[in-house]
């Protein structure tokens, strides 16, 4: 490879070459971090909820017009009616639902003497139908029996009481004790002040879809309460293929029983997932658009400036061709020149990417940039440079040797 003529030629175009190198550096810095953010957000939006077949489970958000003492009885009437619908496989009532309900979290303690070392967990209140309705997989212990289930009417009811037993997720069990073997252990739940025993462990149940709550994202506890309050959620699993019919039947059944309610929403969990991660998917998409813009702009910058250089050096190219340089040699000249400029660009770019990541870590990303991303970025930028330079370089190689003889 003839590096000397390349360096000589570059010396005459220092500023142009620097401009291209800087473009490549900036594009690389943004590209690495954007790819990383895209990957993280996409992974975030696909986190498992633990619910079996999210598309068959729908949530009815029910608000009672009056928070009266007979709510527990009314809810049992509703549930019996929902469960008797032919389109419905099972149903339960809860204070919450994964993928978008309110965040109700409490701390779970193995040792009540250390009140501030609890495992922060999402609290679900469901009866013995909860596990089947959500399709949760029990990995140890047992489900609630009807005898375990206790009425609870509102936040302040049952504060400081006891419960026959609770079911927790594997993630929460591992946080309680490194081995995760906490079945049968007694725990205290704060601030509710409930003392109880762990009787079952489920594989997974997402606590909250929001990234900001990542530290306890899979820590959930299920309390065997028949939850009653002004705002409740009926969780309903439709029989296979009957989702639409089940949703229609459930709504009209509930309004048949009582109109002293407001059904503020009915949504499948798969739709709740789409809503919950709209922001993540949106950010990923906008990042993709930005990356595409940057790549196109940088590529056209290279094409434009290299074309100008080809036009400028037409005469010198003719001379080299007349002196015996092959077309391939001219092609390689421009390709090597671009490799040199891109190489300088990516070297600066990697440093910029790492610096940018330090800032991004504090704002949106959850972790440091893995080494893989700068590597992908470097490869992408070098390839982009080579592709962009191809057309002007081919034009250069087509310059006939005779043009050396003509005036510029």
């Amino acid at each position: 490879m003839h590096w000397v003529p390349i360096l000589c030629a570059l010396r005459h175009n220092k500023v142009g070459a620097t401009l291209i190198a800087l473009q490549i550096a900036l594009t690389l810095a943004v590209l690495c971090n954007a790819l990383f953010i895209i990957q993280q957000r996409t992974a975030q939006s696909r986190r498992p909820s633990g619910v079996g077949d999210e598309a068959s489970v729908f949530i009815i958000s029910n608000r009672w017009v009056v928070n009266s003492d007979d709510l527990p009885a009314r809810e049992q009437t509703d549930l019996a009616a929902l469960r008797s619908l032919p389109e419905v496989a099972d149903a339960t009532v809860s204070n919450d639902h994964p993928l978008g309900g309110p965040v109700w979290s409490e701390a779970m303690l193995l040792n009540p003497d250390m009140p501030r070392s609890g495992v922060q967990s999402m609290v679900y209140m469901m009866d013995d139908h909860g596990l089947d309705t959500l399709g949760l997989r029990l990995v140890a212990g047992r489900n609630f029996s009807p005898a375990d289930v206790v009425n609870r009417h509102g936040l302040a009811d049952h504060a400081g009481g006891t419960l026959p037993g609770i079911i927790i997720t594997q993630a929460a069990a591992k946080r309680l004790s490194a081995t995760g073997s906490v079945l049968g252990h007694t725990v205290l739940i704060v601030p509710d002040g409930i003392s109880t025993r762990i009787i079952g462990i489920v594989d997974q149940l997402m606590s909250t879809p929001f990234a900001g709550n990542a530290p306890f994202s899979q820590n959930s506890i299920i309390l065997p309460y028949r939850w009653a309050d002004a705002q409740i959620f009926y969780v309903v699993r439709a029989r296979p293929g009957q989702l639409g019919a089940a949703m229609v039947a459930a709504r009209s059944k509930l309004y048949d029983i009582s109109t002293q309610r407001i059904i503020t929403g009915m949504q499948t969990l798969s739709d709740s997932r789409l809503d919950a991660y709209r922001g993540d998917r949106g950010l990923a998409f906008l990042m993709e658009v930005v990356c595409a813009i940057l790549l196109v702009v940088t590529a056209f910058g290279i094409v434009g400036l290299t074309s100008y250089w080809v036009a400028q050096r037409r005469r010198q190219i003719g001379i080299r061709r007349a002196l015996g340089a092959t077309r391939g040699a001219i092609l390689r000249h421009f390709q090597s020149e671009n490799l040199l400029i891109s190489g300088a660009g990516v070297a600066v770019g990697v440093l910029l990417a790492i610096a940018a990541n330090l800032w991004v870590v504090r704002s949106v990303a959850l972790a440091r940039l893995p080494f893989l991303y700068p590597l992908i970025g470097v490869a992408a930028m070098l390839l982009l440079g080579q592709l962009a330079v191809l057309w002007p370089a081919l034009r250069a190689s087509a310059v006939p040797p005779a043009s050396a003889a003509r005036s510029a």
Partner: protein
Amino acid sequence: MFSYYLSLALRSLRHNVVLTSLMVLAIGVGIGASMTMLTIFRAASGDPIPQKSAQLFVPQIDNFGPRPGAPPQARDRLPPDLTYTDAQALMQAHLATRQAAMYPTIVSITPPAARQIPLQGTARATYGDFFSMFDVPFQFGAPWGKSEDDGHAAVVVLTRAFNQQLFGGVDSVGRSLLINNRPYRVIGVLDDWQPRPRFYDLGQEDYSGADQLFLPFTRAIDAQMMTSANFNCDRPGAGSGWDGILRSNCIWIKFWAELPDARAVARYRTFLNNYAAEQRQLGRFHWAPRVALRDVPEWLAYNHVMPPAVTTLTAVSFAVLAVCLLNAAGLMLAKYMSRSASVGVRRALGADRPAIFAQGLVEAGMLGLVGGLIGVGLIQLGLIGSRVELPQDLGVLTHMRASDFLIALSLAIVTALLAGLYPAWRAMQVEPALQIKAE
């Protein structure tokens, strides 16, 4: 002279259409990307109540005590809300010009017309001072006063939109409706009012969230209306029932005070410190008093209201602008240098160097103007895209104001001039004689 440069520039730009289009597009894309995000960023970081933001304060009291186990960034933070007990104490002290405790609650509403089915409403339980403290405009009626606060009156203020929904937009003052099945009398209807971000209650839907009705705090407490926002406790509750919630150490009440000058602020700070010290003496707190008093801008910063996604996208979009600027500079350099011959002729015909430089900049400025106009079009596209892609809460911020339009055009011209600076300087270095010889 300027018009001559302009016609020269036009001719030159027409000369190489491909290069000109590339430059204009580079500037347009850079402006489109950066100004789309800057528009959203500016809307997100705006002062929600500019006339008063330095006179409105949130008091904070440390009722949870030291938390050695908490992560470092959370350890020094004070509880964001107050307990009912502390909020009551602050209301009763009555040390600010105006003050209002408040919390949001979701209610059921049965409209007066029998055929309408019940609906859900987002209500705010607060004091009468809320409306005058925040300069809330009224379309009909007026806010309730001290007598309604003290009398736990069953009155309600509706927003304009909610009055439209319930009463078809007529003056509904004096009409009645059922809230959680209890009768309330409409005492006022707000005019359009939606501060963004909703500084007085941060945490959920800071930009799009809106209250639909307002009712006296004292009445809401009587009716046992529970908060629909955070209810945070650090230890098992004081007891059960509604009374247990009121007496608990759980935080859920937001509190705002209007303090007109530095003296009032200092006095309030002293009061807060004394109050915390007194609670310690009474045996309620077992730690040194920790209190804070933050005005609106401080409160927004403390709560990190600006969505991180917006900050990141804004930074990234300015990186796009920088790449576009470098790109345009490179292309302009190529273009100006390929015109050396004609510059040489002009120089030989008597044009001095400043004239060549000025003409170069005029050409760059024109590129900027055209690029900027293309950019404005792209901003509209970008804002529509952002509205679709960003969460609903930020969607409300994707509207361009006249000032954004002006910023976009000026930024485009400044960008182009910056990009043209070096190429124009190089162009003016061309020697007249040399060029004529070469021709």
